[in-house]
Each structure stands twice: as C-alpha cells, then as structure tokens.
C-alpha cells in the first residue's frame, strides 16, 4: 500500500509542478480577480464618488441659502472629481497588480529563455 501511496505522491508531485502554469492562469487568476474586485469595492465604499454626484445639488452642512447652495455644488463637484480620480488611481493600481499576475511569469520565462539563448 505504501508503494502505491508513494507512487501516487510522485505522480502528484510532478502534476503539481506541471499544473503550476495552468493553475496560475485559471483558479489563481480567478482568486486574484475576486480579490481585486473586493479591494476596489472597499475603496469605492470609502470614497463613494457616486454618493457625491447623487447629492450634487443637496446643500452641504445644511447651508440652504443661495451662496451655500452654490458653494456646495462646486464643493461636491470638486469632491466628486477628486474622489473619482483617487478611486480611478486605486483601480488602475489594482488592475495593474492583476496584469502583473498575468504578465510576470511570462516575462520571467522569456527572460530566462533569452538569457540562455545567447
């Protein structure tokens, strides 16, 4: 039985090595994408640019006079833009990380091949 188990283990060991690239671009990539989604959603919840644009014409801090309303629209728009940019940068960073996940192993392999084929 032990021989069978060792045989199986050897097979699994080889399978594990061979499965590495397949896993990286299937289950692994899926987990990274889900993680990226969660990270973006969390920061979206934090910055909430949608909430700012939704309340664009709602006066801030209860300032319902004309000046207050006007200033509020500008402030909200500025906030919306600033927060959207921050969210966009964050999204780009996170997507960049996902892309790195995709590209890096290929780059490493190509780099190694390139170094060896002189």
């Amino acid at each position: 039985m032990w021989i069978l188990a060792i045989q199986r283990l050897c097979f699994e060991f080889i399978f594990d090595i061979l499965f590495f690239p397949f896993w990286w671009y299937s289950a692994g990539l899926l987990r990274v994408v889900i993680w990226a989604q969660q990270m973006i959603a969390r920061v979206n919840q934090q910055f909430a640019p949608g909430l700012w644009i939704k309340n664009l014409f709602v006066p801030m801090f209860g300032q319902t006079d004309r000046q207050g309303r006007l200033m509020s629209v500008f402030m909200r728009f500025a906030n919306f833009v600033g927060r959207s940019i921050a969210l966009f940068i964050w999204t780009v960073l996170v997507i960049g990380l996902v892309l790195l996940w995709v590209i890096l192993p290929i780059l490493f392999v190509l780099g190694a091949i390139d170094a060896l084929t002189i």
Partner: protein
Amino acid sequence: MGDIANPFCFGSNRRVDHLTMDFQKNPNIPVLPCQTCQMTGAVGMKGCHTCKGYMVARAARDNVYFFGMALTRHHLALQRARRGLYVFEMIGALIFTGLAFLFFWWTTRPTLSMATAIDGLQYSSGHGFFSSYFWIEVDHPGKAFFFLGLLGICGLIYRYMRSHTAPAEVEMRPYRQDAVKEKEKVLGDWKQVKNFPHNSQIDIVKAYTSGAKLSIERAYALADAQNSSQLQAEHVFVALLEHMDVKGIFIRLGIPVKLLSAKISEGFVAQKGNRAPLPNDDVIQILFHAYEQAYDAREPQVHVTELLLATVGQSSHIQGILYDIEVDNEKLYGVVEWVRIRNKLRRQYHATLRAGSHVSKHGIDKAMTAVATPFLNHFSTDLTLASMYGHHEPCVARDKEIDEIFRIVEAGRQSIVLVGEHGVGKRSIIEGIVERMIQDVVPKRMQDKRLVQISTSALLAGTTVSGAQERLLHMAQEIAKAKNIILCIHNISDLMGGSADAPGLDVAGTLSDLMRSGNILVLATSTVDGFNKHISRSRLASAMTRVNIKEMETDQAIQVLQAKAGYIEYTHNVFFSYNSLAAAVEYAKRFFHDQCLPQSAIEIISEVASYTKNTRGEHVLVSQDDVARVTGEKTGIPTTSLTENEADKLLHLEDEMHKRVVGQFEAVNSVANALRRARMQVRSLDRPMANFLFLGSTGVGKTELAKTIAEVYFGGEEQMIRVDMSEYQNTDSIYRLIGQPGKQGTGLLTEAVRQKPFSLVLLDELEKAHPRILDIFLQVFDDGRLTDSVGRVIDFTNTIIIATSNAGTAFIQSAIREHKNMEDIRKTLFSQELKQHFRPEFINRFDGVVVFKPLLLDDIKHIAGIMLARVEAELDEKGMKFRVTEEGLSTLAQHGYDPEYGARPMRRAIQDHVENAIAEILLRGEASRGETIVYDGEHGVYVE
C-alpha cells in the same frame, strides 16, 4: 429589510428541541451507499464507475449531498503524505529560489563589477545589480538564474495559495422557516444522483474545517490501530477529544478529558488480523448529521463541535457514559453554544471594526449633508462613535426585540420606548442596534445615522425646569437641522413628573411636540413603574410606540453570561464551568427577586470570580459550588452540596428536635420530613418550603417547635420572623403587614422576609386575626409570593410558614379526656370546630394541620429535665455542679403539671422551688466552686 438580523443571529433563534435533559438519538437520514465500491470510491486500482467517487449520498432540500473523502487506509495515508508533500514542495520552492539567486550572484559577480564600471562611463546611472548596462547590453546566461528565482517565488505563491483555500460554506438555512421540517427524500439508485444538476451536487466534506477532517482521520487511525474491522462512533469521539476545542468543552463541563477518553476506550476490543476498517452505518450518519447540525445552527462551516454533537447523538453507548458523569443533553448543547457564541462575537467584533473604518468619526454622514451639533454634543454621548471604538458590550439573544423595533421604524412610527424592569437588558438592546447601524444592516431610515444619547443629568445640571426645556428645544433644533441623528434617552421617565415648583423636570409636552413634528426619531427606555406613572397618561404615550422588554428566559440568560464570561475571566484570571453559569442563572432567578435576569446573574458571576480568585487562587475552574457558596453567603440559604455531616444531621433531624420538644411525634415528623424535602429540593419551588397549622392548647410546645426549627435548620432563633396575629384584628392593620401605600419598607412582614428570605415565619395565634387579613396568606401559601404596598414582589419560597392556633382547644382537651381516637378528633375539628374560625379554602392551603396533644405527667417530667439542664449549665459557668434526683423531678412535675396550661406552670415551679433556693444559697455563700447543689424534692435544694 428582509433578513436584516442574519449576521447577528445568536443562539436565541436556534431550534429548541434539544433543550431536554435526556440525550436524543439522531433521526435516521436515508443514505444511498455505493455497494460496488463499498464506500471506498475505488474498485481495485480504478475509480468506482457506479458512484463516480461519491461513495455515499443523500437527497434533501433539492440537493444531493455526498461525503467526498474516502475513509480507507490508502486514502487517509495518502492524505497524510499529501500534507507532507505540501511542506516538501514549499521548502523545495524556497530552496530552489534561494539557490537560483545564489547562482545568479555567483556566476554574474565579475560581470556585474565590470558592468558597473562601464555603466559609470556610458550611462551615468545604475550601480551593481541595478546597472542598466548589465541588464540591457550584457548577454550572460547567469541571468537565467535570476528569472528562475523569480519563477520560484511564483511557485511559492502558487503552493501557498493552493494549500490555503478556505473551506466551502454550509448553505444558509432560510430565516422565518424554523417551523418547517422538510421531508427526507430517499434515493433509489445512483442514476437519480446523476440527474441532479451539477450545482446541486454538494460535497459536504468541503464545508468541513481542517480540524474536523483531521479528527476523522485520527478516528480512522485509531480504529486501524485497534485492528477493528469497523470505524465506529466511539473512535470518532475519542479522536475528537484530542482537539483543543473539544477539550475545552469538557473542561468547561468539569470532566477530565483523559478519564473520559479512557472510559470510552474501555469498550474497544483489539482484534487479530490486518483488515482495513470501514465506516459503519453510525459513522456515515454522523458525517451527514454534523453537516445538518451546522445547517441548523447557521454555522458557516462544519467544526469539531458539530461533529461532537452528531457523534453523541448517534451513540447510545457514549450517551450512557456521559449521563453517568452528569453530562446531559442540555449541558452539552449549552457549552457548544458557548463556543459558537464566542466565535460569532469574535467575527462580529472584527466586522464592526472593519465597517467602522468607513463611518465618519466627526458625526457627519457620508454625503456631508449633516450639520454639526455642538450644543447637543455638550449634553450627550455619541453611542455610534463609542461602539466604533469597541466600547460596547455584545448584545446577545435579543434578535426578536431588535427585529420588532426595526419593524416599527420601517412602518413609519417616529419613536419607540423600550419598557422593562431594571436589569432586563434595555441598554444592551440599544447597543445591539448601534452595532447594526455601524454595519449598515438597519432599515433605510436608520442608515448612515448616528445614535446620540442625551445625558439627563447634564441636561438638568444648574438650571430650572424652564431652562432645561429651553436646552431641549435648542437641541431639537440642532437635531432637526442635522438630519443624521437618532436620539436615545435612557430612563425617559426621569424627565417627567416634575413641575414648575417641584424638583425634577416635566418635558413631556416639549418632547411629544418634537416627536410629532417628524424631525426626530427617538429611542427611549423606561422602567414599567416609570412608564405607568409618568408616560402612560401623558401626551408622550401617543407619540411613542411601546416595546415590552421581558425578563430573559433561563437559556437566554445563560447565553448572555457566556458572552460576558470572557471579560470577567480575563479580569480575574479564572475560568467558568458551564455548571457555574447555569447555577448563577438558577440562583439569580430563585433568590434575587429585586433584580431581573440577566443583570442579577451577571452580578453573581462577577462576585464569584473575585471570590474564587481570592480563596483558591488564579487559573482555576469556577464550579457550581463556588456559586452556591457565594449565593449562600449573600442570602443565608443553604445552596451548597450536602456534606456528609449535614446529611447525617438531616437524617436524624427528629432526634435533634426531640432534644427540645417533648412528645408531639406527629408534628416533629411532619416538620422533619418537610425540611428534608426542602434541603434536597424534592418540592415545588414556587411555593413556601412548607406551611403548617399547629393546633393545640397553650403550653404544649407549638411555639417551642417553631423555635427549634429555626435553631436546627435556619441557624438560630433570630432567623424566625414572629408575627403576633392578635395585633391584626381589624382590616386596616393589613398595612402594618404589607406596608403603607407608596411608602417603601413599612410592611412588618414583607420587609422582614425581604431582608431574610430564608427564614421561619411564625404566625402566632392565627385565629385572632381578622378574616380579611388571613386572605392575603392564601396567595402566599399558594404561590410563595406577596406584593407589598409599593409593588415589590416578596418571595416566600424559601420560608417555612408555621401558624399556631388555640382554636378548638376546649374540644381537643375534652375529647382527649374522653379517650377519643386521634383520627376522630381531627375529623371533628375539621368539620366543626375550625370552621368557626377559618374558611375551608384557607385550611386547605396548609400542607399539614397538626394537632398537638395535651401533655401527660411523664412529658412534663421530661420537660422539667430539659429546663433544669439550663440551670445546670448556668451553675457550671460558676464552677458548680447541679444534680436533680428522680424524686426531685417527680415532685417538680407534680408542682408544675396542669393539663390545661401544658408546660407553662413548670417554668414557675422551677423558679419557685429550685432557682429561688439556689439564689439564696449563692448569696449566703454556702456553695463554693467545685461543690454540687442537689434538688431532691423532699429536702429541697442543698449543697452536697
């Protein structure tokens, strides 16, 4: 709002069919085992074609469930080896990466130095490893090692992520369908299984935690080591005992794990041969029942706790052993619930902290439409902020009430008042609401708001009623403007009841106007008394919806203690057993009526923790006896386990009582039996321990017997509350018994029993009281409770009530003289004599009506002996001895015997014939230390 309560659902929503003492056998789950592969998943070297590796399956809830882990020697050995392989691969990848970078450095070292030099000349940037020239211009095969090293890091990530996959989740049991029990479906063959859609085929082992899977592996290894042909429930149980969580459970139950393991292992019989064990039917049932346990409890995974419950539920043998060591179904489920509550609280705490990071710390909503409230902030506390920083304690077992509050808010009512007694957990409910507000699982009207509690003392400080009203109006303006504030007012009745010229405040009108304006949502609390007095008839009542907060049930209170025990354990460095918590709740319910559950029980366990630390040191398990001892000290009620001495004393209670009471065997026996029943708790707990009516002429020992009981059982005559009923001859005197209306502590009886709940109540000369007065005792005798003039319920369940009466004395004496049978005397007494004084329903309420017989000459002689023993003791203190001859006793008996007055003349006889003479002897100095004074009747008293 739907299932808003889901993330907070604690034990209160659990199914309650396990709250019985006896273990219940798991209901049989119809499973389809694969006959082809014998549930091994393989035929020879190949996978099973019949079951496709499902091995055993069941159908339920439109799904088919299977256990995808083959329980065979080969598979489990492979599983163990696989874990080793993972470690090997991790180490291998680490070594590979390290070596690759090392080779890279080793092979490219000279080139790097050269490249750095050239780089300095041509590129003017980079240095060493970061040399641009090296990476762009130089072709060196050593670079391949660097890239291989990076691939090695990818390999490490791959290996780590693959072996750290979170278990799948058990499906969520739908809420509000608790009552629906689904009918089990029976699978006929494997074709039916294959007909299920792929996403309805659930491998339950994927929802097992690694600990639970490891326990099953250990169980198999154990069965294999025993050469057992079957993997049995007992193997699973013993294997579970090795897991830390299960060990913790049995430690909480006060059971040594090693002893339990040894006891279960006794049943294992080592067999010859080398057959690989196969799981028997019980184990298959356990595997599926563990999943069902998790499903029922809405646990996300199948932990060892679920496996434990399923195992115990499946094996009568284990149930028998557990029952023998005093672990029953209720206790086991109670401790498992404790583990679950702790896990859930931990998860919830982290969720709240995480959610709190998105909430403003400055009291502004996300859209910044809110306005700052500086004036309000001055008089209030922001509960949302406090909760975000973890300053609130968890709210447990109050999901029903919180859901009700949310329903009211959703329905559009403006304000809510929680009405309940002190200590029922009104504040805890508010804190539970705050926690849900932070996590945003509240009705829309409450989302993105903050809960602010007004400090009534700050509001009233240094101002008049009109000043406070002005403050309140100012705050209301701020709140209306801010639009993100929910107001919380604890004990709202404190703000009522005053007037312009009286102390206190009356802002009912102001508050109700504010609430009606629709700008403020108020969550208030009030005691029942406060609500009835100040709110129910004010304008506020119509502006607020009342939610009654009832006192918790025992199992809910235990859950609260389980949630709070962690902090108390941490503070005092002791550990609570489950029994200690259950006992705290039980004693709190029985003996501390001034406060409600769970507050009363929380106070007990806090005190017990401190007591245990001081008496037995740190790191010890708080037992039920510790709780009993502290409760006993606080109340004077014996609650500890019976010691051998006490048991012996109780068994010979009659002998002890007869040292003071002569004759009256029926009375003594009745009382002794009642005391034994009370101590061993073989009695109804919602009535007094016993209530007797002693009938008989004066001097026969009625009061003496009551005093003896107080001495023997209650620890002293000072524990006797004596009420002379001749003082209550008119109806107005009832207020002396239960107190003047509205004046606290003025009832002689109620206050005495409140102070001494464990006592003997002697109602002397009962027949002399007004019949209306006697009526209040009907309720005392029946329910063991009496409400005093201020509405407090006084508990009589730990008292013995003895009423004495001379009613029918003349009849008893004449009947005895005529040598009538005692049973006939009793019948006549009941049917004729007693009816003149007491109503039949009153007499019926007594546990026993005992007729004291008139004393005979011999009895009197015996009593004289007892009384003279006191004289002997007094002389002994003076260093002298005292002796009475038989003749002396007979003479005294003749002097002191009067059938009409019982033993009372004897006291006078002893005074006249013995004590007076002794006093004269002592005054004359005729007796000195060491001499004996004798009374022999014929010569009177003399010095021997």
